[in-house]
């Protein structure tokens, strides 16, 4: 009886962030928050004064070519089997102790971050949709850009953080079915070009993969390159800013959604929990995007250059990555164990999650270092792009709004870690 009730309750526990997980992170100590904020401020101003005056990053042309052609087919077949296995577990296993939600929210969604950071655009390499033939019936409209991926990322984030029962198998199966149908339809119409821009997880993995030492040029050549060159190779396209803002805003909402103030508001809201949660998530993404648009507008005025907004979106990628690491590190460490234990059936052998692998001090340190490192990388990337795009006399002044923007994101991220 109790077990049955427990299982329903587990599924109803939608208020806690991350879709799955039993535990939230403690607020970081005040000293950590200050140390992070001061480091971010100092680095920003040093960058303004001390960094190079001529652009150094050469984007897609950079790097040393490595002659490996990984044969992707077996990996894609394996990924397809893994996806089918996950769907099977979601469909057939009892909801209690179901490995499916952990495989989706922890190993896949969170695991893609370190995997892409180490090995480049991994989802592109293993995506089962790339087993479909690449025979476009018509070319992908250029104005579509990353918008489909931005919408897909928003839908997934909503499912994870706002949906009434994020970890319930029906929720995940519904999302998976719609996602797979959209990718198959897109690929059959536009060929593999669709996946590059329309598959939310490929875009997510590829954007983070731009920071990987194992890079992939647009022509498919594998190269060893520095993360800043990789970042510089992100090609601006419509919807790129939106996709990055969804990642940043969604993770920001994740940090905020556990705060008692917000939990109370959700529980007392006349809109219902899902209604207010949706409003909150959209507001977080819109807030991030508006701040970006405003600061880039000012940068354009000060720098006397138009159309800057899409060309600085790449500098938000490391900041979004910092947010992702800060919010998901402990989840990956703890619930990643649970994912493996449940998937392999080790729970029946009495294997348990080791909760003492990392302590609160380590978690807080990782969180602050991730946020500040993301900030530093964003500042460096934006600096290099500024000195390339802005007239020399205005390059320094034109960067100030960009640094203000990044400081806002960074201080906002630290505040979430400290206060929520």
């Amino acid at each position, binding site marked *: 009886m*109790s077990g049955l*009730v*427990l299982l*329903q*309750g587990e599924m*109803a*526990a*939608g*208020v*806690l962030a991350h879709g799955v997980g*039993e*535990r*939230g*992170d*403690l*607020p970081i100590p005040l000293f950590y928050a200050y140390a992070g904020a001061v480091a971010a401020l100092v680095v920003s101003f040093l960058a303004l004064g001390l960094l190079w005056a001529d652009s150094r990053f050469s984007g897609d042309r950079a790097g040393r070519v490595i002659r490996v052609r990984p044969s992707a087919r077996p990996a894609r077949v394996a990924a397809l089997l893994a996806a089918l296995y996950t769907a099977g577990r979601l469909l057939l296993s009892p909801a209690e102790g179901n490995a499916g939600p952990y495989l989706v929210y922890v190993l896949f969604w969170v695991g893609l971050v370190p995997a892409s950071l180490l090995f480049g655009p991994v989802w592109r390499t293993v995506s089962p949709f790339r087993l479909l033939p690449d025979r476009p019936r018509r070319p992908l409209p250029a104005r579509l850009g990353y918008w489909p991926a931005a919408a897909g990322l928003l839908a997934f984030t909503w499912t994870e953080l706002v949906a009434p029962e994020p970890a319930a198998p029906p929720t995940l199966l519904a999302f998976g079915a719609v996602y797979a149908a959209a990718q198959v339809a897109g690929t059959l119409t536009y060929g593999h070009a669709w996946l590059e821009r329309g598959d939310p997880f490929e875009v997510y993995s590829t954007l983070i993969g731009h920071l990987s030492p194992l890079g992939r040029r647009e022509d498919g050549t594998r190269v060893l390159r520095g993360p800043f060159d990789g970042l510089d190779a992100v090609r601006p396209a419509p919807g790129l800013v939106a996709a990055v803002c969804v990642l940043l805003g969604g993770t920001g909402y994740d940090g905020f959604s*556990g705060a*008692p103030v917000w*939990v*109370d508001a959700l*529980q*007392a809201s006349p809109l219902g929990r899902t209604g207010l949660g949706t409003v909150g998530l959209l507001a977080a993404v819109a807030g991030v995007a508006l701040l970006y648009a405003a600061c880039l507008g000012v940068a354009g005025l000060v720098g006397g250059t138009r159309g800057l907004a899409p060309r600085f979106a790449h500098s938000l990628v490391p900041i979004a990555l910092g947010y992702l690491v800060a919010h998901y590190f*402990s989840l990956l460490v703890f619930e990643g164990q649970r994912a493996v234990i449940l998937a392999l059936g080790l729970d029946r052998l009495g294997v*348990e*999650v*080791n*909760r*003492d*692998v990392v*302590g*609160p001090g380590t978690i807080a340190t990782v969180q602050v270092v991730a946020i500040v490192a993301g900030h530093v990388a964003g500042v460096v990337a934006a600096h290099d792009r500024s000195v390339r795009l802005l007239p020399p006399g205005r390059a320094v002044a034109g960067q100030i709004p960009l640094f203000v923007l990044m400081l806002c994101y960074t201080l906002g991220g630290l505040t979430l870690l400290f206060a929520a």
Partner: protein
Amino acid sequence: MRRLIRVAAVVLVAGCGPLSQTHHNPGNSHEVATVPPGGRAGEARADISVRAGRVSPPSGWLEARRGQTVAVTVTSDVADELHVHGYDRTAELRPGQPVTVRFRADLTGVFEVETHRSGLVLTQVAVR
């Protein structure tokens, strides 16, 4: 070289840390008492009531030190089930009857205390 190995071994062992004791110490688990609220010294306590789907006092944080005993007393106006996340303590709630869940806070982090059927977060236990 040997020193390096020793350092690596120490780091490895320290990294693995002590194993979780929750299920190894029998007295330490599933200790749910249905007693009326009565304070014990040194406990982190919360007294919460749920009426018409509203939590009072409003859902907040209950601070506890690691190793401290946490006692959460809940009175609900409807039958429900109480669940402490992470520690996995559950208790049946009967209408109007206060129920106390008492456990030793041996895991750090923030853990929700919620009702299952109404899906309300009653409080979050922050163990440092």
